[in-house]
């Protein structure tokens, strides 16, 4: 399945904004498709914006999956609000809270500047967890500015949406800012 998802992403033009709808079971397959196949093939730096689980947990999962993090950078919006004393990772920068949406944009801008010549794909994980901490109005504004800013830099945006937690408002928001929605289906082939 990761190869299939990656294939769909490869077909998207640069600067696209894509909504990735999935169930919890497809979560790691989707991450693998982006970070292990799509981004390396396209020689992109991946900026992984997490408000769902701490960056450290994702990095641990990537280590298990033997996915190198050399070109993956994390904007972790959840660790600090959890007040956890977890070890900081050199590829992760931290935003105090997922409510500080402007600071998330600033960290993304900072990492893009650091990436210099390489292209960038920004992964937003996930719209549902951001919606826990922010109202729809400010979240729509955030996504609209973020996506258009990234588009102007020819950077693609991939926004995760967990089907179980989708609301009508979230669906409308995603339709408004995204060029395409890819629904990650359960397949028997794996």
């Amino acid at each position, binding site marked *: 399945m990761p190869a299939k998802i990656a294939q769909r992403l490869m077909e998207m033009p640069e600067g696209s904004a894509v909504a990735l709808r999935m169930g919890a079971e497809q979560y790691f397959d989707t991450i693998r498709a982006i970070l292990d196949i799509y981004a390396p093939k396209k020689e992109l730096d991946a900026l992984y914006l997490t408000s769902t689980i701490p960056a450290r947990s994702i990095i641990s999962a990537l280590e298990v999956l033997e996915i190198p993090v050399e070109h993956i950078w994390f904007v972790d919006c959840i660790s600090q609000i959890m007040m956890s004393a977890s070890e900081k990772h050199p590829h992760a920068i931290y935003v105090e809270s997922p*409510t500080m949406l*402007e600071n998330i944009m600033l960290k993304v801008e900072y990492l893009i*500047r650091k990436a210099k010549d390489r292209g960038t794909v920004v992964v937003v994980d996930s719209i549902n967890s951001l919606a826990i901490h922010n*109202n729809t109005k400010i979240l729509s504004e955030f996504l609209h*500015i973020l996506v258009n800013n990234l588009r102007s830099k020819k950077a693609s945006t991939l926004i995760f949406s967990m089907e179980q937690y989708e609301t009508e408002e979230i669906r409308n928001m995603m339709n408004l800012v995204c060029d395409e929605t890819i629904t990650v289906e359960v397949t028997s082939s794996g």
Partner: protein
Amino acid sequence: MNVSTSSGCAAETASGHSYSPQAFRRPMPSKEREAPEERVERCITGIEGLDNILNGGIPRGNTILVTGAVGTGKTSMCLEFLVHGALDGDTGLFVSVTESSEKLLKNIIPYDFFEDRLVKEGRLHFIDIPVMYDRLGLDKPVFDYEEIHILTDAIVGLVREMRIRRLVVDSITSVSYRLKSEEIIREFVLRMGAALSAVGCTTLLVSEISPSHERYSTYGVEEAIADGIIVMGNLERRGDLLRTLQVVKMRGTQHSRTKYVLDLTTTGVLLVPLLKGGSIATGGA
């Protein structure tokens, strides 16, 4: 029935008043109107977001008040302005009033673009004002017109001698502590601003204000005289403290007046628009 009117003809109203259509026509943008904005020589700050806000940079020779509470990034932004200028060929001078330049350089953000050679090659200068006071024999606790003239002449003299194109005084508030009347502060800022503008030096005057302050400067005089005002503040929103920047005045150019959120990074000051969808509990400076 002919209802057409030719351009420029005058008509008469029922009340007998005559009018010309031109008198009611909105002035169209013309080359002459656009020209002054285009002709303005810009001092490109090198801070990408700020240059965008200012429509290309600060008009060269302007004296700008950079004002805000402590910890809002005033000094860092001013230093970045000087470093970018030095890299671009504009010699810069930082007049430090509140802390020694040695301490300042020690605590400076390790900018990715900073090069030691800028100081060694004389493109970036730092002067501590207490040292200047000593050399000029200004040892009075309160300055009068005479002392102010000596001080401004000395600063302007340095600017001329070292061919300074960008000057930062950090802070004008600390200098003004010794000036006991609004008239003397006015004289100081006006005299210095006029002389520096005449030599094409773009100046940033740092002003310290408390977060609850309703004015842009401690004495209320500096803001009236400056060509531009950049306000840096802290904005509290639902318990989060955001650093903000807003250009409220800039002579000689069109500019955005909206509020931006900023971050001080090793790549320099970064700015994004303040999101307006959320409720704002309290406003800072």
